[in-house]
């Protein structure tokens, strides 16, 4: 069965061009990039080139790029570095809708390390309550960490505007840009962020490679202490193959930004329109005008997300849900709850996240499958009768 992959906010297909770039370094060129011989330095040269490619995607300098093992490591490293930079400051600020890499770290710091963690709420459209954020800033604030774009709804936070206000007060600002990178333009210089996390496998590079951007001049306290790699900012022999793949992936992503903005956006909007038109009792989550171009979070009244996913899976369609049953937790997604999405559609929320590999035919097939899946589940739902909620 042909797979229709619309779960790109979970992970992406490794691009053929990326694999091609990596393969020689998996076999033939196994040298250590730090070695003092030409054989090792062949790899070293390639890593320097990759560092430049990554820097170019976000308008950074190559020296500002630190390779890590994943987005979570980047986020954790950033926060711990910020806390070490200001051991006297005990307040940390983030939002209620962050990825667990930040959310659970902040809860840990609150519960186990005595920090005063502030979780700034969002409104029904997923917009951050920036007034509350700015009112919370004080001399005691060690770091503010906010996601650039939300993984579930795609809603974009106004990071440049927020970073300006936060850093003006002498407070460190970190952004988790794992979902934003490669989907919307990112310019770290214009945005004035201190640190930024991104992850390879969300932009058609392999899993197990991440990046932390650290602004030039910022005193950085390493999380992994070891060798001199990454200029002492992250010990451990480089994941050479993946770094090389990530470099190529970043180059491709930069080239695909206009495609994301136009073709992928059109496909996403087409799918959204089809679903809204063909199925009653449907609502789209998040601000429709301020979302990642590839993301659609859409709730279906009176049906449950896992059941929908199982029926999609039968047709080879990959998506994910905001429902409790798929995650092992029992409440629907914290993002949807924070946005006060009503339970009637939160449990039945599906996230479709597209890439430039998707086609219109695939969207038609998804829409047709969704029509029959929702119909089938509503026919057995005690909360749906005669075309509406009961």
């Amino acid at each position, binding site marked *: 069965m042909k797979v229709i992959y619309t779960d790109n906010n979970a992970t992406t297909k490794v691009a053929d061009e990326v694999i091609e770039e990596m393969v020689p370094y998996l076999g033939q060129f196994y040298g250590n990039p730090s070695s003092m011989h030409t054989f090792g330095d062949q790899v070293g040269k390639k890593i320097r080139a990759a560092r430049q490619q990554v820097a170019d995607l976000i308008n950074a300098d190559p020296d500002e790029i630190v390779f890590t093992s994943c987005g979570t490591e980047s986020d954790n490293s950033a926060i711990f570095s910020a806390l070490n930079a200001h051991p006297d400051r005990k307040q940390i600020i983030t939002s209620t809708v962050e990825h667990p890499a930040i959310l659970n770290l902040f809860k840990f710091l609150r519960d186990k390390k005595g920090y005063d963690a502030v979780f700034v709420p969002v409104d029904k459209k997923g917009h951050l309550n920036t007034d509350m954020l700015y009112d919370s800033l004080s001399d005691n604030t060690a770091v503010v960490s906010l996601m650039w774009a939300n993984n579930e709804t795609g809603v974009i936070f106004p990071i440049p505007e927020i970073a300006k206000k936060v850093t003006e007060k002498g407070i460190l600002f970190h952004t988790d840009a794992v979902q934003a990178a490669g989907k919307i333009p990112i310019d770290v210089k214009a945005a004035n962020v201190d640190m930024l996390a991104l992850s390879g496998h969300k932009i058609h590079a392999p899993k197990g490679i991440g990046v932390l951007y650290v602004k030039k001049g910022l005193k950085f306290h390493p999380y992994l202490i070891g060798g001199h790699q990454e200029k002492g900012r992250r010990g451990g022999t480089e994941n050479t193959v993946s770094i090389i793949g990530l470099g190529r992936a970043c180059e491709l992503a930069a080239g695909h930004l206009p495609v994301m903005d136009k073709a992928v956006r059109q496909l996403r909007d087409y799918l959204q329109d089809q679903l809204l038109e063909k199925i009653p009792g449907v609502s789209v989550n998040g601000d429709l005008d301020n979302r990642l171009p590839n993301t659609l979070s859409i709730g279906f009244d009176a049906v449950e997300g896992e*059941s929908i996913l*199982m029926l999609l899976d039968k047709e080879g369609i990959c998506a994910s849900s905001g429902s409790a049953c798929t995650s092992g937790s029992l*409440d629907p997604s914290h993002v949807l709850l924070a946005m006060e999405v009503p339970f009637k559609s939160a449990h039945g929320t599906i996230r479709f996240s597209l890439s430039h590999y998707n086609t219109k035919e695939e969207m038609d097939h998804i829409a047709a499958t969704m029509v029959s899946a929702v119909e089938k589940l509503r026919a*057995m739902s005690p909360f749906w009768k005669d075309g509406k909620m009961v």
Partner: protein
Amino acid sequence: MWDYTEKVKEHFLHPRNVGELKDANAIGETGSLNCGDALKLFLKVNENERIIDASFMTFGCASAVASSSALTEIIKGMTLDEASKVTNDDIADYLGGLPKEKMHCSVMGKAALKKAIANYRGVQILEKPGELVCECFEVTDLEIIDAVKENNLETTEDVTDYLKAGGGCGKCLDRIEEVIASVKAKG
């Protein structure tokens, strides 16, 4: 992805006895939209207290649908006395087992059956007697005590798997632990 048995998948994709039973004379409802799953069970019981037909309507995940389907298949043809002895384990066993975290789906089936039988017999079941322990999923201490005894549950995770209690905000986890300890203390 959940490790569902082929039988769970089959009963989800092709559920038996779906829909309202027009001439039902016993109905049992449990769960809610907020909780994420709900089951409405319809029974047609004859003058000898035998279940001659059963159907269901379910909102929930694949294992909730499969458990409901299995329940109706199990109880059709039983007398109410026989049906009242059906346990949540019987439902899970019929499906070749459920993932541990999904056992609450079979518990929901058992609860709806109990209510339907009470409904037929005109017995009032006191809605959720006892002290409310889990506010998120509205579970009382008496329900936890019953589940711990019947299924020999050991930990708070077990209780969450079977009743959902403690699976929301988590602030009742200490209280659940006390309830488990009190059951174990009494042997």
